[in-house]
């Protein structure tokens, strides 16, 4: 579960910066860039607190419970 959450966070981080690079190359317009950044930001702030700063033991315990 922890690895999956970390993967989601990593994708969210990439999706935070990628729209601006696509805007630079002309692949996205500014409105699309802002929307994509917002979605990526929301995903980052939902996924990351679930693993960052959480002790691994607690997560493992939760996995057992689940």
């Amino acid at each position, binding site marked *: 579960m922890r690895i999956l959450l970390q993967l989601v966070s990593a994708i*969210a*981080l990439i999706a*935070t*910066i990628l*729209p*601006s*690079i696509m*805007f*630079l190359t002309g692949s996205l317009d*500014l409105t699309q*860039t*802002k*929307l994509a*950044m*917002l979605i*990526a*930001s929301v995903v*980052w*702030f939902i996924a*990351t*607190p679930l693993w*960052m*700063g959480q002790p691994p033991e607690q997560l493992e315990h939760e996995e057992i419970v689940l």
Partner: protein
Amino acid sequence: MSENQSQPTGEFEREPVPQKSLLGFKSFIGMYAGEHCAGTELMIGPLFVAAGVSAFDVVVGLILGNALAVLSWMLLTAPIAVRARLTLYYQLEKICGRNLVTLYNLANGVMFCFLAGSMITVSATALGVWFNFPMPGLNDVYPNSIGWVLAVLAVGAAISVVAAYGYEMVSRIANIAAPWMVLVFLAFGIVGLREFITATDSQIHSLGDLWHLAQTSIWKGGEPLAGQVKFTFWHVTFFAWFCNMAMHIGMSDLSVFRFARHSWYGIATAAGMYVGHFMAWLSASVLYALQLHNDPANTDVLPGPLAYKACGIAGLICVIIAGWTTANPTIYRAGLAFQAIVPNKSRFAVTLFTGALATIAGMFPAIAMQLLGFVALYGLLLMPMGAVVFADFWLLKHFGLQPYYAEHSKLSFNWAAGLTWFITLGICLVLVKSGIEINGFQPFQIWFVALPGWFIATALYIGLSKAYQQSKT
């Protein structure tokens, strides 16, 4: 600019850090990289543009100035920290005595309040985008609308209450937000660059083309905006070097590096300098330069609207979090500094009082709009005590003098250290006021004077210690 959010305080405050509690190199990399992407970076970048910097001056000046800052941490702060392994406050108490440390705490607390005030100002500009009230201009000193006052009050009250309850939660949010914030800062620069390319109808096919755009459209140099001081290569270099002077030359980060295994861990500060004080400053400055390019009459430095235009709501959230997560520990630490002066008052009450002071300061845009000068003053004010720590640790024994003299002689106020502080500041302020000019250059402006000031303070402390210690014996 930043305050330490995750430094391991609260432990070993009156004893050396034991071997088993030392931290690895990665801890320091993460700590510094996250801390130096603060709300104030969004003010400093634009203020460089308002000060009329050229592309070479800002890019090369920041590379050099940040390198000097890293070297200061590595060669001045960390070597003492890993040998003494004490907090700055405890080490100062041993040197200066309790009463002088109390005075130092007062000065530190007041400066923290103003710094937190400017961070509250930054966050409040984000509310202006949502509620559309008139916001202050570049040269405004006083609050200019009821909406502005209410916005600062709301942000300041929220930050103060959270800080009073302890900032563990905010510290956690800061840690979670840090990697994301760094990328949003980078996105500010990338989006601003694209907009510049479109606005100037430029063709970028090589790094040379990009540099040409930077020189001719982004950082054009020339005269500063009205009310601003012209920044040259040396201004940028010294500003980047000294903007965290309180932390390195001023020795505040002894409290951080006492946990380091080796003094070379000081190089970890490069992560903070080149992310926050290079990339973030340049990105924010690109946004402001774009605003001036599109409307030269719009000189307002308002991080909220700048971020919103570039990156929408994600940009606004970044401004709020960047200001909030850095103002919070600053208020908390200012509260701790003040509480040392009035130990019978609860930390909760003192922190609320501190937050109220910071909030009032934040209502006055002059502090944030003159941040380049304020930051230099902040470093200058605390620098002499860093020189005292340096001289006491490395030099006094060579002159046959007693280090940690206050502890040794059970003094509550070491006049050698106190006079060093006051006289150095007096000399520096006289030099700044003198306006001495050599070949059209003013070498004693507030951004430069701390360099000769450090040598003056070191020499003064040795001389005054000799006289003071001999008079006592």
